[in-house]
């Protein structure tokens, strides 16, 4: 039988994010394995993965994606790692009229107006991150928040989503600080936030939303915000970064995935197999990659034929099981709605990293994720 070709288009060289891509690809392979019961076949056809490197360059990404669709004649493609690169890839899917599953790039805009009906997105988006983060703070009128984010679209959009989630709860934003990307010294901004918060009555929180390095939380923590009764809050992170969270015992926030927090059959298999094969638990891009693969498997199993339009039809509104529970492709913009984890940091000297202990799972329905575009219209 003809193999079913799937292209994995990720950044594999040229940036330190290449490690994320590798997690996603490992996850994808595991997902195929799990989804096909180890046969690696769907409807009797073997699955062939074609790996492409975007080199983290949008132009390269466009070329290799076009190549995958045009020359390798893949059925669909999965990718890419960074949002900028992925934005560049969107029109190629439309041009070739083939499906692109976005994983693990996060930006909301990937399912926004510039997107198109060939795009499905299994990765969570920034709105989910920030809304979950807001919910994890249990906002009420007593809450005062100062936000710290990087000064570009990602940071500003994130804070906007956060604010909209606080709307109506009575919580107040006392100041919004935006730092240039790549900032490493946060003293000045911390002073500004301290000055804005210190005389407020009630719960005082500094919300940190910085994707890059710089270790803003650690540096602000070192200035001992606790002397003003100020807490720090931020989202979770990948395992290699979690050791630095040991400095924030008791901190609450929200994250996309932590291997111990989700209790389901898929996750149990993933954790067991991953630990067996790689001697370490799966990280969150691994889970993401697996979710994407499981979506593909389910769609291919269910679709009557593999014409793109049929596949789109199959996938719109489709729900499937993933390591983090059930996900559903929203028909309007093809974003997969999914649960998030509200955690509290626990420090255990026997574990290398700080453990984001489950407080609760924030169900997808609880979050009001704006619809980016309407593919139905």
């Amino acid at each position, binding site marked *: 039988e003809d193999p079913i070709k799937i292209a994995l288009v990720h950044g594999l060289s040229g940036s330190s994010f290449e490690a994320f891509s590798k997690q996603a690809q490992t996850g994808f392979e595991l997902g195929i394995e799990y989804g096909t019961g180890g046969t690696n076949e769907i409807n009797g056809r073997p699955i062939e993965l074609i790996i492409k490197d975007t080199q983290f360059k949008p132009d390269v990404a466009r070329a290799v994606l076009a190549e995958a669709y045009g020359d390798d004649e893949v059925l669909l493609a999965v990718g890419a790692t960074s949002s900028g690169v992925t934005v560049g890839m969107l029109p190629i899917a439309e041009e070739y009229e083939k499906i692109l599953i976005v994983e693990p790039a996060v930006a909301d805009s990937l399912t926004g107006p510039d997107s198109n009906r060939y795009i499905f997105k299994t990765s969570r988006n920034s709105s989910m991150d920030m809304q979950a983060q807001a919910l994890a703070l249990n906002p009420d009128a007593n809450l005062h928040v100062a936000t710290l984010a990087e000064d570009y*679209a990602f940071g500003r959009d994130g804070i906007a989503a956060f604010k909209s989630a606080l709307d109506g709860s009575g919580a107040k934003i006392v100041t919004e600080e935006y730092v240039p990307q790549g900032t490493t010294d946060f003293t000045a901004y911390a002073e500004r936030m301290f000055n804005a918060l210190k005389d407020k009555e009630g719960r005082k929180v500094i919300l940190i939303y910085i994707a890059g390095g710089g270790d803003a939380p650690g540096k602000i923590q070192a200035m001992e915000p606790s002397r003003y009764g100020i807490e720090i809050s931020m989202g979770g992170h990948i395992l290699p970064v979690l050791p630095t969270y040991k400095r924030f015992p008791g901190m609450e926030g929200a994250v996309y995935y932590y291997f111990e927090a989700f209790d389901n059959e898929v996750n149990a298999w993933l954790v067991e197999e991953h630990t067996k094969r790689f001697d370490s638990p799966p990280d969150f891009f691994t889970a993401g990659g697996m979710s994407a693969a499981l979506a593909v498997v389910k769609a291919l199993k269910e679709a009557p034929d593999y014409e793109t339009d049929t596949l789109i039809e199959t996938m719109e509104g489709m729900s499937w099981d993933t390591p983090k529970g059930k996900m559903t492709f929203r028909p309007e913009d093809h974003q997969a709605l999914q649960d998030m984890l509200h955690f509290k940091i626990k420090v255990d000297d026997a574990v290398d990293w700080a453990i984001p202990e489950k407080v609760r799972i924030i169900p997808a329905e609880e979050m009001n994720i704006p619809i980016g575009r309407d593919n139905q219209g």
Partner: protein
Amino acid sequence: MQNTGTLIVKTSVILIFALLLFAPFLFQDVRSLEVAARICIFIVLVASFDLLIGYTGIVSFAHTMFFGFGAYGAAILLKTMGPGWTPVILGALAGVGVSLVFAIAIGLLSLRVKAIFFAMITLAAASVVLVLASQLSQITGGEDGIIYKAPDLFKPATKLLTDADGKVVRLWGVRLNGKLAAYYFVFFCALALFLVMLRFVGSPFGTVLKAIRENEARAEAIGYRVVAYRTAVFCLSATIASLAGTVYAVWLKYTGPDTALSFAIMIDILLMVVIGGMGTMWGAVIGAVLMILAQYYLRDLMGAASEAMTGIPLLPELLAPDRWLFWLGIIFILLVYFFPKGIAGTAMAWGEKA
């Protein structure tokens, strides 16, 4: 006066242009066409950088900035005004305008200071523009960049020639569609800009640039206003880089920091100009071709090599496709070390001796 080395270099360049001219017919896969278009753009970009570094001896790290101005000019207007030729032309003009303003400001302000300080100032300026592009995301799309549509002529669905049934005519198996038109737009723009630059370097103006590179004080003493010439060539090369940016933006239908502004592109340009050979123009062509082929195909080659080596210790590790940049770096060092004049320069000098 033509020696064999020079002859070989010039023949290869002409051959390269011939291959580029027939690329859509010779290599009928998607990636090849992308690669060919990218080569065309970078030939112009690298050659315009060579005007600075190779001919005049000015080290600037702001070349991608100008490239970016051109690209963003077209991109922003195509996005806001919709596809068409007017936004392309206006965008090109806007890009050139902004580039000129920056080039003149930087030039007048700092072409008098030590060469190395100038390099650092351009580096700083470029990095500020890069961050600004990501901060002004309403206009520039920020980190994610902008996608937009090119003029209708370049739509893949556009039929350049139709047969009796109204289907696209195929010539040697190639569909005569908008994609082809877009490629030839890129190719001929690049060719024209390259020829213009060839003209520049052969003119009296070009010889003055070389004189400034060789001995600035003496050039001034025999009557050339060095600062004026430097500023002029800085503006000139900025203009050409900006135009190249516009063409690339039209081709890619996407513009973002990583395709038009990032420091990685600057390094690519440097690598290309050095590998090809500075101060020759021909070198730009050779450098751009080799580097881009490496970027797109070295990985694959290494993957194959790595697989072939399985079993042998260490080698497969080092040949792992993701380490291709490592090898590129080493090749680059060896080139600078053993062929300081680059491929074209070395070939031409070798011909001189022979």
